[in-house]
């Protein structure tokens, strides 16, 4: 399966080429019946690609991901317009469980480990939907420990007491245990030490390369996101305001200035920022 996936991965470079694995067209999300969080967002996630979802706080990144994985309901939010299809199949009616069975797993913003379970138990719960036997699960457990040796050390400790980073690893590891084909990563870099951020993205990249896992990641850290992603969308208060290949985005002047912090004048120090009122908006 892996090899075949690889081909496809290579085949669908830069998105669009083959029919997208996951496509979101023009969805509108409302919280509490009154708060309009997404005002018509459309994304196309090619199979085997890494797609980045960028944008300021409150832009609606997490909301988008939740809309895909269908856990909006539990936050009293609902998709009021538009639709989402996975490999051509409409999925708005599916339960999160169905989605995970179809290989779509979300790693939620802000970790969400199971505080009272040990790290290892956390990982094992990740494999809940799997039917391929204990040995296979054990294998993947080892794989995860391979990626995150630190978790191996803490396998017996109660997740609630581990540090922020450890929890982040735990959350990602847990998602891996489900043998996903699509991972929705919400701000994986948040609160991680630089070299860990690297590592995690390396791991993500490896997964994408080796296992042909498709990734949709919401990131604040535009810089690293764009250097790993193939394609990027920029969200601003509930709308897609810009999208394109990682390359083109990185070249884009506005992106450079507002998201990468490099302007024509080169990189400037955080000390030298004069006024706050620089915000330029596309909308």
């Amino acid at each position, binding site marked *: 399966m892996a090899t075949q996936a690889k081909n496809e991965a290579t085949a669908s470079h830069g998105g669009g080429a083959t029919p997208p694995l996951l496509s979101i067209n023009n969805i509108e999300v409302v919280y509490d019946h009154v*708060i309009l969080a997404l005002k018509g967002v459309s994304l196309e996630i090619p199979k085997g690609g890494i797609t980045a979802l*960028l*944008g*300021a*706080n*409150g*832009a609606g990144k997490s909301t988008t991901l939740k809309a895909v994985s269908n856990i909006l309901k539990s936050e009293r939010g609902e998709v009021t317009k538009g639709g989402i299809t996975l490999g051509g199949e409409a999925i708005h009616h599916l339960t999160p469980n169905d989605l995970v069975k179809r290989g779509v797993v979300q790693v939620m*913003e*802000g970790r969400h480990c199971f505080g009272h379970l040990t790290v290892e138990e956390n990982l094992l719960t990740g494999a809940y939907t799997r039917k391929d036997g204990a040995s296979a699960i054990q294998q993947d457990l080892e794989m995860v420990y*391979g*990626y995150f*040796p*630190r978790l191996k*050390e803490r396998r017996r*400790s109660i997740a609630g*007491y*581990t*540090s*922020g*980073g*450890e929890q*982040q690893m735990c959350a990602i590891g847990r998602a891996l245990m489900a043998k996903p084909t699509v991972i929705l990563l919400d701000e994986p*870099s*948040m*609160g*991680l*030490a*630089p*070299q*860990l*951020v*690297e*590592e995690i*993205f*390396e*791991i993500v*990249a490896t997964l994408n390369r080796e296992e042909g896992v498709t990734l949709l990641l919401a990131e*604040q*850290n*535009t*810089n*690293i996101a764009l*250097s790993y992603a193939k394609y990027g969308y920029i969200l601003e208060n509930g709308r897609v305001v810009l999208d394109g290949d990682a390359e083109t985005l*990185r070249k884009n002047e506005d992106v450079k200035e*507002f*998201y*990468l*912090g*490099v302007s024509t004048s*080169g*990189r400037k*120090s*955080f*000390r*030298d*920022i*004069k006024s*706050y009122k*620089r*915000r330029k908006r596309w909308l």
Partner: protein
Amino acid sequence: MATAAPSKATDAPREDEVQVQADLAEVLLAVEGVTLRFGGVTALTDVSFDIRRAEVRAIIGPNGAGKSSMLNVINGFYHPQEGQVTWKGVTRSQMRPHEAAATGIARTFQNIALFKGMSTIDNIMTGRILKMKAGFLEQMLYWGRAQREELEHRAEVEKIIDFLEIQSVRNTPVGKLPYGLQKRVELARALAAEPELLLLDEPMAGMNLEEKEDMCRFVLDVNQEFGTTVALIEHDMGVVMDISDRVVVLDYGKKLADGTPDEVRNDPAVIEAYLGVSAEAPQPELDGATPISDGGHRTPASVPDASRS
């Protein structure tokens, strides 16, 4: 005041400034030989460092190094098994958190700890509770001192709100705010207490560049305007190196290095344990948020942490 951003920072060359502060300023808080254990885990082992008045002190280190625990020790939420904390000349091995707050230590939290059920303004007002003196009956009747206090403190809080530019969400329940704004409200709440020492636990986590820049501004202004001492934990090297005067590096609960940003940045141990190889030579284009290496050459198995403990 928010509009008139001071430009003092850029006038004086930075190195000197650091020197000046480092030498002259009195020690505001000193941590001596602190060791903190949780059952089996040793979060901190014999850590000592000091924070001088009016400086920006950064605490960095890999995840699980014990940074947050350090802050928790400083403001009395964790009680170290060994060592003690000297705060404004008074040495104590234990104090209750609200005492710490009363004596001028305020902080923000790594996993946001706002009062979800309250509006932004009320959250910030809680920061000033220590300053409110009105009695029960007065408040019950909303009369006399109670009313007066409410109004004057409200005025103060509004200043902070303008300063941090959160007017628009003044009356929104914080639970519904996006992450980044919540962080800002939390800072506002800490500032409302007019602290002498401000502890910030990863204030810029989960922010995009723009917001980080603003946050830096705020931190620096607070530090320069009111001379508030700031101790902050941050993983974004760009930020840390730029805005902090001195940096202490923790790794696995042990102090790894302590000094000016440049000293630290060039310390091989730090690079090995934390920054990653490429940190000192960032390609200008990819710099800004987090410096990243050309990736891949370090296999996960050889994560430095793995070898320890």
